[in-house]
Every structure is written in C-alpha cells, then in structure tokens.
C-alpha cells in the first residue's frame, strides 16, 4: 500500500506545540475480564474526505471496508506469514500444488441476518474474474476456476503451481454477499452506500468528515469485538492529523510524525508509544534497457556510492532503517537473509571501491570531477521522485551528495504523483526512486518477485505491474517459479538465498531504505495493542485486513 508522507506546511511550528506539559495520569489497573465498550478513534491521513463508498474491490476506498466489514478466507499476517483460518475453517493443497480446497466456516451470518455460504465465496471470486478492474491482487492471472464441489467445499484450480499466491487469494480477497452484489448492474461503477459484510463491525454512519463503525453483536467470533464503537475521521493533511493524535483525541495512528519523540511521546511518556516495523523496500530503480545501466559494473559502483545510514538518518529521521542489498527486509524477515554472502560483498558507502569498479569498466574522471566514458559522455543522470513525499526528496538529496563525492552527477526530477507513476510504470525514466506500488507480502518472495520477475514487466511505453526497471534474467525467473511450486519451507529459504546472490552480484535495483508501517498507539484507555513482542498483526490502520485483527484484540481498560 502506498503511503502519503507529506510533512505539512509548518510542521516545525506545530512542533512548538510541545511546550504544553504532558497531561493527566490515569489509574492504571488492568481489567482482568475486559467488558464490551469504548470508542476508539483512528488517526490516518487520508488526504481526502470520505466518499462513503464501501466497495472492497475499489483500491481507493477499500481501506475503509476490507477487514472490519468484509473478511478474507484466511488471515495471513503480513509480518510473519502466520495463517489463521477466518471465513474458511480449513484448507488443503493438492500434492501438485495446483488445486486448493477450502472448507467454508458454518454458522457465519451476514450483517443483514442472511447466512453466509460457499456460494458467496464462489460468487465473489467469479465476480472479480468477470470484472478484472475489481481484481486488485490479480488473482485470476494464476487461477483457472473457482467452483463448489458436491460436498459444499470451494475448489480452486490453478493454471500453474502458485503456492505463494495463497496470500492474495485467501488473505487479500474480500468475500461479498451474493444476495446483494448479484443485483448490481455494473459492480465497477457501483457506489456501495450500505455495506453488508461478515465483519466484526457494521458501518453505522458516514459523512465526508467521519465514518462510525459499530460493534456487530452477531459476529461469528463469539464475544468479539470488545470495542463498542470505532470512529475513523478523514484528515486532509498530516498536520491536523498529527495534532489530533498528540492531543489524545485519537488513540491509534498510522502517521508519519516528524520528531515523534518530542511531538508525540513526550506528551504522555507513560502511554504514547510507537513501533515502525519495516514492510517494504524503497529502491533506486535502474532502467536496465539503456546504457550505462545495462552494465553491471556501473550498477555495482552506484550501490557502493550510497551511504544508506545517512539517507536513513537525514532523509527519514532515522524512522525508516537503511536497506540492504539482498533486498530482504531486516529485521522483519531476518531468518531469510544470507548474512555470509551479504558480508562478502559488504555494500556500504565505499568511494574507493566504486571508483575502482568504474575505472575497470573503462570510465575516467573528467576535468569536472565527473566520470566519463571513452567517448567523453559523462555519468550524469536524472532520477524521478514524488515532490509531495518530502522525505523521499530529502533522501534523494543525500544520495546526490554521495554520488557526487564518487564522481557521478545526479539530477532530481521531483514530480507530481500522477506524472511520477505514469513514468515509473511505463519505464520512461533513467533512474527512479521509490517502492513497488503493489502490496508487499508475508515473505520476501512477494516483493522480490514483483521487483525482479520478467513476467511482471512490460515493454517500455507500456504499463508494467512490477519490475519497473525492465530487468530480465531467466535464472531469477526460474528461482521464483520453483518457489511457487513448493510448500517446503527449507527449500523456499534456499531459493530466496539464491535470489539474494543475484541481487548482490547483479544489483538490478538498490534497496536504499526500508518503508515501515507507521504505527502509534496510546495505552491510556486501551490495551491489547500489537507490539514487537506480540506481532499478531501488521499494526498500521492502513494495513489491510490486519487492522481488523488489531481491532479485535484491542479493548477498553476498565
């Protein structure tokens, strides 16, 4: 999921708001049997007023419906791939990993009282097959058919072995009620004003400025949720959203807050907390179809010319940790990282090594201090970036400085976001700074595959779903395809390590920093939050459908 991270107009002035002293203390007795009640307010800059459209298949509004209103078959934790049966009570893979059979949970009711059944599941999947615009996770690229068998189970067949696609199919596809959705003439342009789902909450009121979710008393997980009401106000800009959170009017944030320790934590050090687990990489993308980026030595030299620590500190306030060249997120996926190999290459800011690589590749330093090739063409490039993401702009400035020290000239082109994505998807750039636009997944496979697999790319000028740099390497494609065909975890780890070897040697992209799930929470009135010690869900309110799981765990202290 893409995140806005604009630093508002005068965030610094707003930071002065801190001279107000930390406020009140609360009696801190943890209730042993939490009662049902409380109103929790979510704080997440939406950058727009709510449209009051609760269509879980519309990528611009599903953040307000997928999870709390509509649920997936299986909940698959983004942070650790831990799977919990949800609307499915069981599932099995066939031995060739080409057929997946779900047993559908019985006793679940839609919020209008109608029973939920396997027919709804079959209907939902075939709905997004017919209307490919609604297939947000492109599940029908691998699915062949979804049907109900004679015993009432849902059977999915695949065009190819697609074990990792379980995450998108079971974990990221919302199930909608057939008895309502079959009446929609055109589900693509349907505005869903009165959502009916299976989720723990119902939408009780929506205005442009706020959505109120109310507890569903007939939820299938008996006794849950323990929150009576959840309010989700719309924030147009980061500043008011941050102020709302810092003054305690909202208790759960998904915000980028500059100087969070003074602005947020210091207002109530006992209760105001944050945790930023990395969930994706922010890369430098090479357009590998053009010179000199089709030259491995140049790519490696650039990878040795970037001081990731200083990008993280100066560009991202240290909140987004430095990335590493294996492309595997640390600490989120530490068990997948081949540390020995990474150490062998030792990618860090190393101007001598970068210079050596460039000289070996036939570049010489010109009078301006910039390297040039034999024909006198300078190593001078343009990198595209989103002007509204002030942290990225700052990061690119640090990178510019780094490269300049080595002898490579970098010019930044800060674009409006539509123009940026247009260039990024169509490959109309030399270098691009940014992350994949597709959602990350619960193992390193998802992001790496979408970054490197040539099957996700497209010709220059056409919209690519992934691999924006148009990197083509049959060896790496094969590794991903093998990963897709196995359910054996040891084998999967081994395959990812081979991918890491290619990342280190070939440098198809440079992971510079790691994007995080922004997450702030107050323990003053509420408990049960996800923490590093208990990462039961990806913790940002914009992690879908993880936010549902968080709202099922959180309760009001008595």
């Amino acid at each position, binding site marked *: 999921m893409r995140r806005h991270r604009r630093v*508002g*107009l*005068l965030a610094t*002035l*707003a930071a*002065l*708001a801190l*001279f*107000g002293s930390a406020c009140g203390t609360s009696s801190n007795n943890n209730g042993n049997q939490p009662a049902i009640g409380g*109103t929790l*307010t979510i704080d997440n800059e939406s*950058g*727009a*007023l709510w*449209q009051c*459209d609760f269509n879980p298949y*519309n*990528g*611009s509004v599903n953040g307000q419906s997928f999870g709390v209103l509509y649920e997936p078959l299986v909940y698959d934790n983004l942070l650790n791939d831990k799977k919990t049966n949800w609307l499915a009570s069981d599932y099995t893979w066939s031995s060739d990993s080409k057929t997946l059979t779900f047993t559908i949970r019985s006793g679940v009711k839609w919020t209008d009282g109608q029973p939920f059944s396997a027919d709804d599941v079959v209907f939902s999947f075939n709905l997004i097959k017919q209307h*490919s*615009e609604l*297939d*947000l996770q*492109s599940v029908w690229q691998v699915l062949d058919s979804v049907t109900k068998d004679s015993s009432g189970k849902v059977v999915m067949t695949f065009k190819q072995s697609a074990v990792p696609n379980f995450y998108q199919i079971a974990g990221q596809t919302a199930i909608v009620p057939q008895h309502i959705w079959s009446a929609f003439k055109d589900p*693509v*342009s*349907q*505005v869903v004003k009165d959502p009916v789902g299976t989720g723990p909450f119902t939408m009780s*009121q929506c*205005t*442009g*400025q*706020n959505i*109120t979710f109310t507890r569903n008393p007939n939820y299938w997980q008996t006794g849950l949720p323990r929150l009576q009401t959840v*309010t989700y*106000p*719309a*924030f*147009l*800009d980061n*500043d*008011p*959203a941050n*102020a*709302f959170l810092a*003054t305690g*009017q909202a208790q759960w944030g998904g915000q980028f807050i500059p100087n969070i320790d003074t602005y947020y934590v210091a207002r109530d050090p006992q209760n105001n907390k944050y945790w930023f687990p990395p969930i994706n990489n922010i890369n430098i993308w090479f357009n590998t179809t053009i010179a000199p980026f089709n030259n491995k030595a140049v790519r490696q030299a650039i990878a040795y010319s970037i001081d990731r620590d200083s990008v993280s500190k100066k560009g991202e306030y240290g909140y987004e940790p430095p990335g590493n060249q294996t492309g595997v997120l640390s600490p989120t996926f530490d068990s997948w990282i081949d540390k020995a190999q990474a150490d062998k290459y030792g990618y860090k800011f190393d101007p001598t090594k970068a210079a050596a690589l460039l000289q070996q590749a036939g570049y010489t330093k010109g009078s301006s201090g910039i390297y040039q090739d034999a024909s006198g063409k300078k190593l001078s490039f343009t990198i595209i970036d989103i002007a509204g993401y002030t942290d990225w702009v700052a990061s690119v400035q640090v990178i510019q400085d780094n490269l300049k020290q080595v002898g490579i000239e970098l010019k930044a082109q800060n674009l*409006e976001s*539509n123009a940026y*994505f*247009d260039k990024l*998807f169509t490959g109309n750039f030399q270098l691009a700074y940014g992350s994949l*636009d*597709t959602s990350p997944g619960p193992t390193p496979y998802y992001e790496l595959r979408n970054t490197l697999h040539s099957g996700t790319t*497209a010709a220059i000028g*056409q*919209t*690519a*779903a992934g691999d924006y740099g148009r990197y083509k390497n049959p060896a790496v494609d094969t590794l991903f395809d093998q990963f897709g065909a196995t359910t054996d975890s040891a084998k999967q780890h081994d395959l990812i390590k081979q991918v890491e070897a290619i990342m280190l040697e070939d440098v198809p992209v440079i992971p510079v920093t790691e994007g995080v799930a922004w997450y702030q929470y107050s323990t003053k009135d509420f408990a049960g939050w996800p923490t590093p010690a208990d990462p039961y869900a990806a913790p940002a309110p914009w992690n879908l459908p993880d936010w549902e799981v968080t709202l099922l765990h959180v309760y009001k202290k008595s």
Partner: protein
Amino acid sequence: MSYIARRLEFFVITVWAALTINFILPRIMPGNPGQAMLVRFHGRVSPQTIKALEVAFGINNNESIFQQYFEYLGNTLRGDFGTSLTFFPAPVGDIVKQGLPWTLGLVGMATIIAFALGTLIGMLSAWRRGGFLDAILPPAFIVISAFPYFWLGLLVLLVFAITLGWFPLGFAYDLSSSINLSWDFAGQVAWHGFLPALTIVITSIGGWILTMRNTMITTLAEDYVKMARAKGLSPVRIMFMYAGRNAILPNLTGFAMSLGFVISGAILVEIVFNYPGVGFTLLQAVHSEDFALMQTLFLLITIAVLVAVLAADFLTAWLDPRTREQA
C-alpha cells in the same frame, strides 16, 4: 426598469458563454481520463473496458461535437455533471454536494461578517478622522492582513485549540454526531467554525476598512453632506443615510465578487482546520486532472460570481437613484 432588463440580458449571455468555454476547455487540453484510469488500475483493465470508461467520461464517443455539446447543456441543466476520475465511481454531483454547504456556510458567513464589520469600522474611522479608532484599527488590520494565512491559522490553532484547548482542532461538527436540525448541532457547528471564521475575518477585514474609509472621506466633503449638516440632521443619520449610503456603492461590487468566490472555498483554511469543504476537493481535482470535477466547480464559481454581481447591480439600483434614471 430597462436598467434591470439590460443587466438580466447581460447575465444570460455571460452564463451561456461560461458554459460553452467550460465545454471547450477540457477538450483542447492534453491528457485523457481514460489513460489516467489505465495507470490507476495498473494495467489490469482490458482495452474494451477503457473504451467503456471513456464513453462514461464523455470522451471518445462517436457523437459529433455538436451532439456532445447539446447533451452537455442538457445534462448540466439537469444537474448531471458526470463521473469523477479522482473519486471514481462517485458522481461529481455527490462530491460537490458533500462539501459545498460547509464551504458556503463558513466562508460565506465569514465574508459577510468581514464586510459588515470592515465597512462599519471604515465608516466610523472616517467620521472621526484622526480619532482613537482611526489611529488604531485600520493600521492594525492592514498589517494583519499581510500575514501569510497558514502562519496565522496555525498560530491560532496552536494557542486556542492545542495549548488552551478552548476550541476543537478541526472538523465541522463533533465526530460523534450526525447532521440534524437541533440547537445542540447548531452549537457544535458554531463552535467548530469559530476559529476558521475568525482567521478569515481578521485576514480579510483590512481591505474593506481601507476602501470604505477612503471613499467615506471623499463623500464627507460632498455638498449634500454639508447640506445635511446645515439642515441640522442628527450625526448618526448623516453618517449612515447620507455619507455611508453613497460611500458603500463602489464596495458593493467588490463584495459581490468575493461572495461569488466563496464557492471556491478557502483551501488553506480547510487544510489547517481540517474543514470538510469544497476548496480542497478543487485542489485535488486540479492535481489529478479530474476534468469532470474541475469543470463543475469552475462552472459553479463562475455562475456564483455572475449571480452575486447581478444581485449587487440590483442593490445599486435601489441604493442609488441615478442608475435607475439612466437609459
């Protein structure tokens, strides 16, 4: 009456011209909503779907430009403004309807208060030229109106909402309540709207004070004011009915214009105070090349300005007999 008839005639022609320009502009601009949708859907849509979308957005259909034009006029008259690209699939009408009442209420009210107060202060300070009021208020407000709006807005927010906590941080009414007709709700709206309205008033009042004061000074030197004094009329009556009534005329058109522009909202106010108005929507529409939404908002602004100017013309005709006699 021919004065009014001429005004009406002019009004109808300008509205038609505005509608037509509004129809032509997006069609000669580069860029294509269908293409934009393609990027939005990350290439997940088939070419047929794009065709269907393009027809839905009213471009690339097989009708002639004249057919399209009359269809557009008909749709506009019926209040059907098409589908928004940014907020797909929401109809533009719904999006505008959602924000417009708040913008009209807040910015409209603040503009009227600023005009009324500014005119009164301008009048009084001209009446007592060099007096205490004249020495303090006009210069003070003119200095304030030179402050950047967001700076003042954030300062007010910081002091009254964050540090003192007297007023809410944002929104048009309490999050827990729904829109209804009750004193309680009206109170919430007033409470939430106070700070944004206050900042608009104190930043815009300076202009009204200055122009009113200056025309008033000229008017006070007119013969009919001397005549009124000679007749022994009460000073209050002279100030309001003789000098004030004439001095306000040049200001009226300016006021009408600014009332018309109320519709475009106050983008910065909405950002700073997180107010659910239509100004921020306009900004988004421009950013994402959402022609249908942009067109509708610009059309509304144009028509609002025209209606307000027309109303000001009528008011001038009533206040100033001389305009009625021309013809």
